[in-house]
């Protein structure tokens, strides 16, 4: 489903060139639950941004669903992000001016008109599953952090994407809410979605099928962990 080959990404600050990513090969099959773990600054967010078509690499090739990312126009990439990829961010990325309901339905506004109603009809089921169905009229700042992250996940799932990318999804949460979020992600994985979680917490990574360790922009495969369930 996802194939990276000879990916390189560098940043330049003054005369110094900093290699953020140097990945000879990376694959992720459909339906995998994958953790990318590493210290802060190891390049894991950069990798996730490239996987999510939010950023481009300096060299190498990236194929997603048998399409070469570098051959896609910005508009096609945006369309892929909208329909195939769901993002869960550490700081939730909720829009304070919109209610919970409006926030969750935002990704549907990019869809063709006839699909919007179809997706909106799934709102109640989705929110009930996230246990936020009684919060729909509230604004994000009236919710707890755990609730905010569940709203963010609901928004990531509203278009029913095949891939879920989570950047430190539990980074701002207490242990109870962390577990709740992790359970939701695992549940989505069990439904057949590809879930890639970037984290620096070993406990979260241990809950995944496969772990990849990042260090100084390079990948290192780790043995498959035991399913805690």
């Amino acid at each position: 489903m996802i194939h990276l080959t000879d990916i390189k990404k560098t940043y330049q600050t003054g005369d110094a060139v900093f290699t953020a990513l140097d990945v000879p090969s990376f694959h992720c099959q459909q339906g995998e639950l994958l953790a990318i773990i590493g210290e802060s600054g190891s390049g894991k967010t950069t990798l996730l941004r490239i996987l999510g078509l939010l950023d481009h690499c300096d060299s190498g090739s990236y194929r997603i669903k048998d399409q070469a990312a570098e051959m896609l126009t910005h508009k096609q990439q945006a369309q892929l992000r909208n329909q195939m990829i769901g993002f869960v961010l550490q700081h939730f990325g909720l829009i304070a001016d919109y209610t919970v309901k409006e926030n969750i339905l935002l990704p549907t506004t990019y869809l063709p008109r006839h699909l919007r109603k179809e997706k909106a009809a799934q709102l109640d089921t989705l929110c009930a599953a996230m246990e936020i169905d009684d919060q729909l009229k509230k604004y994000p700042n009236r919710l707890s952090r755990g609730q905010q992250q569940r709203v963010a996940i609901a928004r990531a799932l509203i278009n029913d994407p095949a891939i879920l990318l989570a950047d430190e999804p539990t980074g701002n949460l207490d242990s109870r809410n962390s577990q709740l979020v992790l359970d939701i992600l695992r549940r989505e994985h069990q439904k057949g979605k590809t879930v890639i979680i970037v984290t620096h917490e070993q406990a979260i990574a241990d809950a995944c099928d496969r772990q990849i360790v990042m260090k100084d922009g390079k990948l290192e495969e780790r043995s498959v962990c035991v399913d805690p369930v």
Partner: protein
Amino acid sequence: MRRLTYVLTEIGAHVWLKVAVVGMTTLVIMSSIQFFQAYDRYLEHTQALTENFGSASSIRFVDISAESISSKDILAVIDEGQALFGDDVYYYLQGGDFFAEADAFVYSEGPLAIENQFGQSLVQPQIVIMNQALVEKADFRLASGRQLEARDFADSGNGILLGSHYRENYQIGDDFLLQSFVGISEAGQVMTAERTYQVKGFLTEAHSLLNFWQGRTEEILLDEMIVIPLTEDLMQSDSDNLSVQIMGFFYMLSAKEEEALNYLDLAEAVKEIGARHGYSYLAFSNDRSIFDFEINMYRSLYQNQLFLLLLLLVFATVQTGMIVHFSFKKRQSVYAAYLGMGSTKAEIFTVISLHYLLLFAVAWALLYMSEQLFIKENWLSRQVAWGTLFYLTFYGLTVLTILINHCFPGRKLGKLLQMRKGGEVG
């Protein structure tokens, strides 16, 4: 629809910062317009003064000896003046002896009203009566209708031009009734005769004439003015009028250099004309020091405006730049969410840019309303256009530079300005 929602959402975010942007933008646009207004005035007055500079530009016949009032033949004076100066002599009478009924719609010189032989209450409208040479020289800008032509200066001519403020109450072709002063009856009653004019054209808004006066340029605003051609019959009837007899009239000499240089020779001849007809005369010369003072005054006015504008520009550019920068940083997670949901960077860039453009438009609208309600300066549309475009350029460059740097850090400009290592959206 989605983009419009995003633009409105942007305005709603950090609303006090947006208020600061709008406030400062309003101030700078106003200053910019005022600068162009001052510069325009400087250019106009300098050009007019330079073109008309000579040893004398205007002559006024004045009679202060009441006993000789009836003995003057103004038509002969005008004829002799014309013979002396040629066809380029400009003269006008301000006000003349025209009145209008108080209940008619006119802009009057003052609240004073008099009553005529028919018991009508009369006021004196703002009127300027011009000869054909002066009308041609003035080359009025018309909002509608036509210029005054040779036929309007003939005996039967009845065409007039009206200032822009009259447009609300009159139309081209409408009759315009005025009462001309005939005399005073033995009982002391003011006697008038009705004259019917026809509206031929309307002047543009904020139109003004420059009157040369002792080396200075006096601006006569024509918005509320009625421009009447000095016809032969009007000269005939006015020549007996008291005020014309006493106050005389202006000769505004040609700007032709040789005539100006010959003025000293002509002065004696002018004096003789006056003396023949019982007039004293005053020659208002264009003294070099007055001329320089006038030019310097207009120059320093626009320079002061420029200094103020530059000061505001520096402050506004820094302020706007900082607000654009910090607003973007604060909203970065929102833009990241938009990007993740299906927006392109170009769309986000467009939305943010449009929202700043909208703030500019709000500032402009606020200024327009304030101008109408409180400032009430006569800004010409070209001054408004230049003033607005001038600051829009600075404002646009400031906003776009920072947004390009944030939204497209890979671009050349972005790379030049980029201070951070990257990694976040934008």
